Structures are given as C-alpha cells and as structure tokens.
C-alpha cells in the first residue's frame, strides 16, 4: 500500500531500497555521505592519513580482542600468558605482533595526520571541535600505548611504568593522588596491572569509540578543509573529486597497501618479549621508553635536578606542557584574519615538530 503511494509520488524508490529508506532514512544518509568532496592539490596525499589511522584503529580493536582471549592480567600469569601466545597458540605471535606494530604505526600516522592538519590550517572556524577531538584522540592513543606497554610484565615495561608514574606524582595538586590511583598502592604490582588492564581494554576503547564517532561526524559535517592557496585559485582551477565513491576507493587501496606493509613488518620482525619483570632486580641496561615517549624522556634528562624553587621533573614537565599549549590555543589565535598570525602559527608548528623530531633522534642515539 505504501509503495503504491510512493509510485504515485514518482520520487521514491520501490522495492527493498524503498522499504529500507522509509525506515532508516537511507536517502538522507546517502545525501549526507555524498556531500563531501576532496580538493585536489599538491598536498592532497595527507588526506589519506586519517583514513589509515581509522583502519589501524580497527585492527587494534580486532587484534586486541583476540589477545584478550589468552592474556591473563595477573602478576604471576601475565608474562607466561604472553609467552604462551607467542610460542604455543597458533598464530598467537602473529596477532600479538600485529597489535604491537599496529600501535606504533597508529601513533606515527596520527602524528602525521595532526601536523598535516595543522599546517593546512584545518583548525580554523568551523572546525575547532574537529581539531580538539583529534587532539584528545592522540592523547588517548598515547594512553593506550602507556597502559598496554605494562601488560606483558617484562622488565622494561615494569620500569617504564615506574618512571611514568613517578613523573606523574611530581605534578602539582593532583599529581600524587592520580599516580596513587593508577598505581593502586605504593609499589607497582598487581594493583597497577589490574588497573592498567581495565583502562586499556575497557575505559580507553569506550572513550576512543565515542570520540572517533564525533570526529568523523564533524569531518563529514564540515567537509574537507581547503588550504589557503587552494581557496585563492580561480574557480575553474579548483578541482575536486567526490569522496564517495572516488576517494573512498582510493582510500581502500591505500588501506590494502598499509595492511600489507603491516603484515610484512609483523612477519619479518615479530615483536619480542623481554625477561619477566623482577620488582627487586636492577633496571636493565639500555632501558628506554617506546619511541613516542623518547622526546620527553630525552628532554627530562637535560633538566637539572633542581631549577630555582622547582624540582627538575616538575619544571621540565611544565615547560613541555607550555611548549605544546600552542596546539590548544591555535584555533583562537590564528582565525584566518591576519596573515601575520597565520605565519606565527606556522613557525610555531615547525619549531615544535622539528624539536620533537630532534629530541626523538637524540634520545634514540644516546
């Protein structure tokens, strides 16, 4: 009956699509999806970064859920369960390596995504919330990395966590309380492992899903941002391609390549596992944090134990927070009205990026 009236209207589709459309509003959803266009210019490749991050995130979720089947978050059992995943469970080494390599690649891609958006000035109105949700997503992923690193309970991860929490406890006001909540006691032990596990597999995934949904919704709502030089082109020279299906198909191709890259890494360089943590043994020689924490690690090494009234760690951490705070205020500083401010923002971004790269390399070499 309803389909009859639709036919009469002559506008609606009949059959299954029509039936679904009436119930799900597919038409509107398609329209929403088709709205997006991708500008074509010399920096268009960076538009792939977000998509790759999305794909890697899906891989982290899938491999993480698989790992949870055999992983046991207990002081005596954790390291043994990873050993078992690595050596006895069929394809266990594969999924564990995927998860570890994937985590590293994800963070690398996110950093690229962040800075490309920054230099294309995509944080400007109306995309402030897109920018902030992205910043928080990066912090969440660093949280994933920090909490996940402890789970295998090997010697390096034990001390990495120890240092991380000790730095946290030196922060003003809430530092001590937050560190003690996370540590679950005076020493790193079962309490810490349980908490990190829960944060890693429940709390952060929930937060992450919600924010990813928002982030993607915002992107879809506002369309792709166009860099200034592209906007200034005369209309005829500004070329676009449709996101659906053109760019999306290219996205799929890139995902496939990235996936192959990941699989190659995983099989050629399976992720290792250090000896089990010994809370009373000495810190292993050559201990270093994951590469994405190397820059702050190296920076803190340079700060003397006491700077004026401040303890070295606190001073160093405050300095780093200050250095990064530009990322937070930039949408309200560089609103696109003043060329002067746009330039300042670009230089700030360059200095920050080069600083991070330099400290990371320095930390890796020393």
């Amino acid at each position, binding site marked *: 009956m309803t389909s009859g009236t639709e036919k009469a209207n002559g506008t609606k589709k009949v059959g299954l699509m029509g039936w679904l459309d009436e119930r799900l509003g597919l038409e509107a959803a398609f329209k929403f999806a088709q709205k997006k266009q991708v500008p074509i210019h010399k920096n268009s490749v960076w538009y792939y970064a977000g998509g790759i991050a999305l794909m890697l995130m899906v891989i982290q979720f899938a491999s993480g859920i698989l790992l949870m089947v055999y992983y046991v978050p207990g002081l005596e059992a954790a390291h043994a369960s990873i050993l078992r995943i690595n050596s006895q469970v069929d394809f266990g080494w594969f999924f564990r390596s995927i998860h570890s390599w994937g985590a590293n690649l994800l963070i690398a891609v996110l950093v690229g995504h962040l800075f490309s958006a920054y230099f294309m000035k995509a944080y400007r109105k109306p995309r402030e919330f897109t920018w902030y949700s992205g910043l928080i997503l990066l912090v969440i992923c660093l949280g994933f990395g920090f909490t996940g690193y402890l789970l295998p309970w090997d010697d390096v991860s034990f*001390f990495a966590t*120890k*240092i991380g929490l*000790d*730095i946290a406890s030196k922060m003003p006001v809430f530092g001590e309380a937050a560190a*003690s*909540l996370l*540590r*679950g*006691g*005076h*020493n790193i*032990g079962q*309490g810490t492992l349980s*908490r990190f596990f829960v944060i890693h597999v429940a709390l952060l995934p929930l937060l992450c899903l919600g924010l990813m949904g928002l982030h993607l919704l915002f992107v879809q709502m506002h369309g792709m941002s166009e860099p200034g030089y592209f906007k200034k082109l005369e209309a005829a020279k500004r070329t676009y391609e449709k996101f659906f299906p053109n760019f999306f198909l290219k996205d799929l191709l890139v995902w496939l390549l990235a996936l192959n890259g990941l699989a190659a890494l995983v099989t050629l360089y399976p992720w290792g596992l250090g000896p089990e943590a010994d*809370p*009373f*043994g*000495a*810190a*292993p*020689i*050559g*201990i270093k944090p994951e590469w994405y924490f190397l820059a702050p690690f190296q920076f*803190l*090494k340079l*700060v*003397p*134990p*006491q700077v004026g009234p401040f*303890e*070295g*760690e606190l001073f160093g951490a405050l300095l780093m927070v200050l250095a990064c705070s530009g990322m937070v205020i930039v949408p309200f500083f560089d609103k696109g009205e003043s060329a002067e401010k746009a330039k300042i923002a670009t230089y700030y971004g360059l200095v920050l990026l080069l600083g991070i790269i330099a400290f990371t390399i320095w930390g890796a070499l020393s």
Partner: protein
Amino acid sequence: MEDHKPEDKSEKHEHGGCGGSGSGSSCGSGGDAKGGSSACDGNGGCHEDKSSSGTASSTSSAEPVTSGCGSNGGCGSSDSDGEKCSRSQFLRAAVPCVGGVWALMAAYPIYSYLTPNGGDEPESKVSSVNIGDIKDLPPGSGKNFKFGSMPALITHTKDGELHAFSAVCTHLGCTVQFRPEKDLIWCACHGGCYDPSSGKNVAGPPPKPLLALKVEVVKDKIIVSKA
C-alpha cells in the same frame, strides 16, 4: 492544586515561590502569548493581568515568562517582592542541581573504591634480612636483594668494607645496580651515579643520596638491617 479558572479573578498571586502554593503551577495564567508577555511586568514577577485573564483559558505562556523570571535572579529566591516562577523554570534549574549533587554522591564511593588502602601490602615490616655468605660477595662486587617490600643493594668495596642501601634511585625510582667496571652504583634509567661506599649522588640527575642500611657480619653471614 487549584486551577486557574476565569472565576478566580480575585485570587492574589503575590506570594508563593517555586512550586510553593498553587499559583506556582502557572505564572502568567493570563491569555495567549501576547497577553502573557504584557502580564510580566518590569519587576520580573509575573502578575496576573485581570483584564486578560478574564477572557482566556489558563494556558501558561512559557517563553515570555521565562525571560521575565529568569532575568531577575531566577527561581528559588523568595524575596519579599513576591517573585514567582513557573514549574518549567523550576525544573530547568532543579534538574541540573539534582543531577550535579547526584554525580558528586556517586563520585565519592567510586573514588574511595579506587583508592588503594594498602590492606594487602605488608608495609616493610621486615627489620633485618640475611642475604647469604660473605664468601659469595668478594671485594669489588655488589648484589641486589629484597629488603621487605623494598629493593636493596649491597656493595663490597675494594677497601674491604660492606655497605648497604635502598636500591631505589632518588631520581625517578628505578632500581640501581653496582657496576664493577666503573666502581660505581649506577642507574640504568637516566644514568644517575652514586658512590659505592657512601651512597652519595655523584653524577646525573639524582637529587639525593641513597638511603643507607646497616650491615653486620655474624658468623660469616651478612645481615642487613634498618639504619
């Protein structure tokens, strides 16, 4: 609850705060939107305009009233002006308040639940430990051991003396070790160095010396106790 009926013309609507007397159920009971807006006088209080109330039903006109009451301290203040507000305004103020209080009430048990109470941690009750035979620790060597819940370190320096310390680096809490080739106590995390006899911080980021413990040798056995 009394309803505003056209016959209630004589009723005075000067008292009664939020949700108080029956009049709280609708301020501006007079007439349609236009009538209602004129019924809200400059004081922000909503006074019934007799002329319009006589003709109209008792539908409340939310918007004008909201602006009227809201601009004047909002709901809850029952000052002598006889300020009133509508049920919807009251709810709009009350829902976030109750929600906030509820959230605080929920946060407290959650915070307490997550706060470690140390019940399962025997807080370093140990006062001395036997860490083995002196023969196993020749001069120029050192060894990490467990002192209660604290990592500890003993050094046998080349001058033949024994020294014991907490092995917790005073920088960021890594566990230090004795490096025989450097003749130093060394921390792998950021390269802090301590003197193997005194435990004094001699290089790198550590801000303080290591906490010293007491060493005795009883019948060739090394006994370490709290200093």
